[in-house]
């Protein structure tokens, strides 16, 4: 029997992108698509939100996929199978509203393609026509391609440098689809805030219902601190317990983008200190 919070498996999907299965039966038991967990790597660690990418109720594990961008995600990346995390809480947030809409475009950018996977799967399971658009900076950073293909009726790929699929951003692929006459009933998106902003400019222009899964900075994850607040339709909303999904056409993206940069100075300082102690963890070549 694994111990609670034990890392069962770890896989490197792309440079600095890792997939990790963690034993937390109470979360696996109630997890639904669109929800997330808060992980603390060690006793001095930060409360780090990560999306639930997959789970197994019988075996009691949940799957996380993360990009190593700073100290918390690097600490997490250094955890080996057999070791335990300090804390995992969840599932948090409201599950994605899944029903048969008709044609649904699912957009995932960067590491968040993994977060789009359970959503595309859920939309597919209730017989939507699922068109997935996934994008990465470069071909070697593109993850979950085969998994996304397996749950989509159509799969479109973009890379910023053109090394795979269409050269450009996911929003460019969305425009191309719409120009060809596609009339989706829903566009669902997850990824870096600037990507979601670009996609929502398109959906706004074409008057398409659009949902975005937001990723603001969080602390508590339970409606107590307000760190995750965003402005949607002019109102303050808490992403952790009222979200994480909101009407993409109503989100104040510029404010979210500013708020994500709030600790840039401190993050850089911490990262430098961390790297001087531990180096890059040795798997950059992967």
């Amino acid at each position, binding site marked *: 029997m694994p111990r609670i919070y034990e890392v069962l498996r770890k896989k490197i999907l792309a440079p600095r992108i890792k997939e990790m299965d963690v034993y937390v039966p109470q979360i696996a038991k109630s997890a639904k698509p669109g929800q997330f967990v808060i992980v603390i790597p060690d006793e001095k660690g*930060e409360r780090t939100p990560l999306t639930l990418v997959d789970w197994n109720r019988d075996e009691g594990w949940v799957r996380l996929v993360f990009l190593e961008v700073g100290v918390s995600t690097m600490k997490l990346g250094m955890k080996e199978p057999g070791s335990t995390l300090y804390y995992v809480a969840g*599932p948090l947030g409201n599950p994605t509203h899944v029903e048969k809409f008709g044609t649904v475009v699912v957009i995932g950018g960067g590491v968040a393609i993994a977060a789009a996977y359970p959503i595309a799967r859920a939309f597919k399971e209730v017989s939507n026509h699922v068109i997935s658009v996934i994008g990465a900076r470069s071909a070697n950073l593109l993850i979950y391609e085969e998994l996304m293909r397996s749950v989509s009726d159509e799969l479109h790929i973009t890379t910023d440098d053109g090394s795979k699929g269409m050269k450009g951003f996911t929003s460019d692929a969305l425009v191309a689809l719409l120009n060809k006459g596609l009339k989706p009933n829903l566009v669902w998106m997850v990824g870096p805030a600037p990507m979601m902003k670009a996609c929502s400019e398109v959906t706004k222009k074409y008057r398409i219902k659009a949902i975005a899964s937001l990723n603001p900075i969080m602390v*508590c994850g339970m409606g*107590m*601190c307000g*760190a995750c607040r965003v402005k949607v339709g002019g109102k303050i909303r808490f992403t952790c317990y009222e979200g994480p999904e909101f009407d993409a056409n109503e989100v104040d993206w510029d404010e979210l983008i500013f708020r994500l940069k709030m*600790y840039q100075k401190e993050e850089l300082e*911490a990262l430098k200190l961390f790297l001087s102690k531990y180096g890059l963890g040795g798997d950059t070549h992967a």
Partner: protein
Amino acid sequence: MPKIKPRVPLPKRPPEERIKDFNEVALGYDEKLAIEEASRCLQCPNKPCVKGCPVGVDIPRFIKLIRERRFEEAYKVIKDKCPIPAITGRVCPQERQCEKYCTLAKLGQPIAIGALERFVADWAREHGIAVEHAPKTSVGKKVAVVGSGPAGIVVAADLARLGYEVTMFEALHVPGGVLVYGIPEYRLPKKIVYDEINYLRELGVNIEIGVSVGRTITVYDLLDEYDAVFVGTGAGHPRFLNVPGENLNYIYTANEFLTRINLMRAYLFPEYDTPIHRGKRVAVIGGGNTAMDAARSALRLGAEEVHVLYRRTRAEMPARKEEIENAEEEGVKFVFLVQPKGFIGNDLGNVSEIMLKKMRLGEPDASGRPRPIPTGETITFQADMVINAIGFYPNPLIPQTTPEIKTDKKGRIIVDSEGRTSMPRVYAGGDIVIGEGTVIEAMGWGRKAALAIHKDLTINKKI
């Protein structure tokens, strides 16, 4: 009537020293000072002080025992009614509770009941005194306690002592509620809270952290497995001013600011991973204890100036007098009769200025305090960090996910006089029921609910 001696002052660290760190400000009485203060007590036969204490500590009795140097017995007397005296002795608003009713309050200075309670609790801890709990015979019933703040702590302790199998669920990674994430280390060292939580574990309470009831598991699930459920999820949901610019960077809610510092130890960044902004000119909005805690914490993070902006005047400030004095001694400044109208930011989205409406006092409002009325005049105030400490709503997660539990207009769970909610086998108490209360009020509710649960489950076997 004998001449009344003045109250023995509680030794404190000097302001210039204490604002450099987060260590405790008040040092507490030693044996000599405690006995001296205890000797002032008149041992009033009608015990007026006791009626000011929400859990009914036998105050004259424990004070008499201090006078006789029987500290261990004094400890047992307090502990009989109050499970966490090292905490209540430090944070109870005594001037509005026990000390308010002390006979000496009318004649001069009331007995320092809180300071004496704290002395006894600290003495007991230093001398390794544990209160033996009656060997429990299991009643064969299981109770789930949701939330590990003072209300939950008391329900869990009382029921465990009565022989119930108790499991406590806490969403955060450390149990204790506001005691660990809200009240700063310099007023309440966290070590003391951990000791009290360990006492719960010794009583056999099983504590499950990282469980958000409503998400990880629902109240319905709990009712399948447990005979009763107690909801003590507090009033930790921050309010906003609803004015333009409120989401600018470095405008914190007091909860976020204090949680980063207390729970996440951001003041030790980068040794700890959670960052916090260190503002130079800080504005704190509000006039309660939370505002004082935020202002004094900001000073300790190295702010050059901290200003508390309050919409009424000093006389109406809801904060404890002692905390206002402490803040002032440390250099916190106050600006009265102002109310934010909006926030202005720079091109990085960081707050730089607050627009303030000037106010004047009008007729009393529902709270009995004069209502602040805008004068029509607006001023601006420079600040590179703002902490919003205007108050809280009840935590919405359980009501949101359990419609059978009825709430009032303000989102507070409605209970009968003994803590029963509208949903059978579900009880509630503390801030989720009263809105923003105090530690000892939450404990008082916890005690009531524990008794109701015991009555319903075992004595009357109603359930």
